[in-house]
């Protein structure tokens, strides 16, 4: 496997794991990171979260990753676990 692809996969995996741990901890979910698939919907079906949960998640993500998430960014990113990972990676790369 090419080194740059290996590196990208490692970054994606570690960010995904961080996001899963934040979700599980912030929402007091009784599960392990492996129980939650990356494309699990967060609202409606899927985890069935509500607007209060959304605020909790945003606050936790901002705190843990030291970044600011606007309302519009939050609306677009809080669809699945993977879309949160996309947002964080895009902001981290933007800061590099």
């Amino acid at each position, binding site marked *: 496997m090419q080194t740059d692809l290996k590196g990208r996969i490692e970054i994606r995996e570690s960010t995904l794991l961080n996001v899963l741990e934040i979700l599980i901890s912030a929402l007091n979910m009784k599960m392990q990171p492996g129980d939650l698939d990356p494309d699990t919907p967060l609202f409606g*079906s899927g985890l069935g979260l509500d607007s209060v949960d959304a605020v909790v998640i945003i606050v936790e993500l901002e705190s843990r990753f030291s970044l600011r998430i606007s309302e519009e960014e939050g609306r677009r990113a809080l669809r699945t676990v993977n879309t949160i990972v996309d947002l964080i990676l895009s902001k981290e790369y933007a800061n590099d």
Partner: protein
Amino acid sequence: MLMTEPESHKGYLAIRNSVALEDETDMRCLLIRGREAFKLLDHICPCNVFLQNGEMKHTLLLDDNAVPFADVYVCRNREDAYLLGYWLKSVDLIDWIKQNQGSSPDYSVIDLTKSDCILTLNGPYAWELCAKAIGPEILGMPYLSMMSLNSGTIFRAGVTGEYGYHLMVPKEQKNDWIENLINTGISFDLAIADRRARDQSSLENFFFDLDREGQYQLTPPELQLQWRLSRQKSEYPGSRAMQNLREKGWDRRLTCFVTKNSASVNDEIFFENESVGQVLSIGYSPVRKEFVGKALIRRPFWHAGLKCFMVNDQELETISAPAIDNRSIHVNPNIHSYFTRKEN
């Protein structure tokens, strides 16, 4: 069948932009009633079925190998339960329930598909049309809830990522309902959608489809559907296979992808010269103006955000689901309307 050509598709565009009506002949419904209806459901469903009146939950029914053969909502209407959804044509669900019912609970099953039909409205303004055609009480229905009507039942659910309502009405009233909805829908630019338009919408939103990826004998973790199961529940059909899978792990996963050119189902996906997976479904997305699909990709290549794969000598990029930013996410029934959409 999915959309294969970059052509404008009226039903699909109505699902994405206004509202579309579909006569869902492949959706079925069982009514389970009796003192122990929910004891039965608790026995056969891999999720918790502690539902409030009017509440629905999206789950799967699994065979002994933990392979889903039914994609259903469990719904509570007082002491009665509905199993609403899709199951393989080869499966007689009532027979399967009898074989898996456990200690003979007190219940009876009625196949409502024989007496009723299901008309579905999907679209970012489906709520507004429903409120006008049926009544303003529709506006108060949360996602995954149901409500009895004077002559029928309405379920708020769907697989398009937009506002969705399934209307279950007696077959003899079907034509009257269609006429009413079409007449009310004229001012909403209502279009008739077919299975193809729904399938494409469902693919873009990464919904499970028994007729697509359901054909590959995949398990919930491979399908990214663990959320349809309760982690706390230990006994249900397929639970032993699920337990083994969780202990051993899995090495492949369904992943959403996009590509500029078409590919075929079962085409192999490569990283350099190494085969990393295969296409399970693909269709042209008029919103993205490229092809969207689901691929079964093996670890560690199964992540979203990788633009390094090839299919048929064309680039393929894995992406996070859903593949589109649904308009319904940005439409709020409290402040928006189809008639003022341009101002918004």
